[in-house]
């Protein structure tokens, strides 16, 4: 314990209070399992839209789910849990984006192949969304996939409503241009 002696703020040798070990458990195993099944994919998709890497998105998903497991505050509803999970996933993803350790890169094409998208239209949309700047990708995902209204997207991301509206509008424009270009470059073969 002498290692920490010169360090202000580290109290050492203190017995671990029993309440701490209880406090770290936030919810029952059954409840946790149910929520993981319900929202695990949502957390992964949110993270992927930030990171464009399956490995990194899974890393974030695991971190977020573990935080849910130890979260002590009561949730009012499943929707409340989902909102909390998305917000934590956004923050964890942002943190990883800035992290020097993040270099688990897998070609996007490799991952897209595993999705077995049913048509070229789907495939083009996938790549077009992934080509958007990160701040637009997540807005588009929350709005179009999760069906959150603009106000809710703004709340989740901590942005102004007008900012989100502008970002959505710009993202739509970019997607429109990109998809139009894709159609010109790769005409449908019958």
């Amino acid at each position: 314990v002498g290692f920490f002696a010169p360090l202000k703020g580290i109290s050492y040798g203190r017995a671990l209070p029993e309440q701490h070990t209880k406090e770290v458990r936030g919810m029952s195993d059954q409840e946790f399992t149910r929520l993981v099944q319900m929202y695990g994919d949502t957390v992964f998709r949110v993270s992927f839209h930030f990171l464009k890497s399956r490995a990194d998105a899974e890393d974030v998903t695991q971190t977020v789910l573990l935080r849910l497991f130890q979260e002590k505050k009561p949730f009012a509803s499943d929707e409340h849990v989902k909102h909390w999970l998305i917000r934590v996933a956004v923050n964890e993803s942002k943190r990883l984006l800035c992290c020097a350790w993040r270099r688990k890169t897998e070609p996007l094409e490799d991952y897209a192949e595993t999705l077995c998208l049913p048509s070229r239209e789907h495939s083009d949309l996938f790549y077009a969304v992934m080509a958007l700047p990160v701040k637009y990708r997540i807005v588009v995902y929350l709005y179009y996939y999760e069906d959150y209204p603009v106000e809710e997207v703004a709340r989740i991301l901590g942005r102004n409503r007008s900012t989100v509206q502008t970002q959505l509008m710009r993202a739509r424009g970019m997607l429109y241009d990109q998809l139009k270009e894709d159609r010109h470059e790769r005409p449908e073969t019958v």
Partner: protein
Amino acid sequence: MNDRKLFKETFSPMHVSEEAISEVMKMTQSKNKKLLRLPQAVAGLCACLVLVLGLAVTANAATGGELFDGIAGMVLDIFQVNDYKGIGVSESGEEFTLMGTNVDLIAREGRAILVVGEDEEDITDALTRDGAYTYERTSGGTVCRVEVTGTPEDWKLEMAVFDEGDQPAITITRASD
């Protein structure tokens, strides 16, 4: 791009892998309830440890480098108590308290953004107007207080982390370059 159906069909095949989920389940059901994953444990909660260790450079020099060597081999497990506090357990079974979180003031699109843990706040207007801003949050009885003074370009911040009712346990100071 107004076709929600197409959007949902495109992104619904994205699933987190069974392996990742079963790994989480194993961790939550493990006997010792190791709630923080490494390296996240080190990168997240114990960013504080790194910061605290930063304060100990002088002490390390005084001990001939034994301090850091000792700490590196010391922490075996970390139990997160709340957003700002963890309980570390050494290989020899000793327990100690870790307090703190990551803190920074970053410039983004011409704005000064205070980052504390997972919170981000735009404090440009407050700094410009008042020359000071105080952030304070409590998590599970532990308080994190960050006081920023100066301007958005030339600032100094001081973070204190302490249990409610106690004196600040950790004080970390940072300043703009």
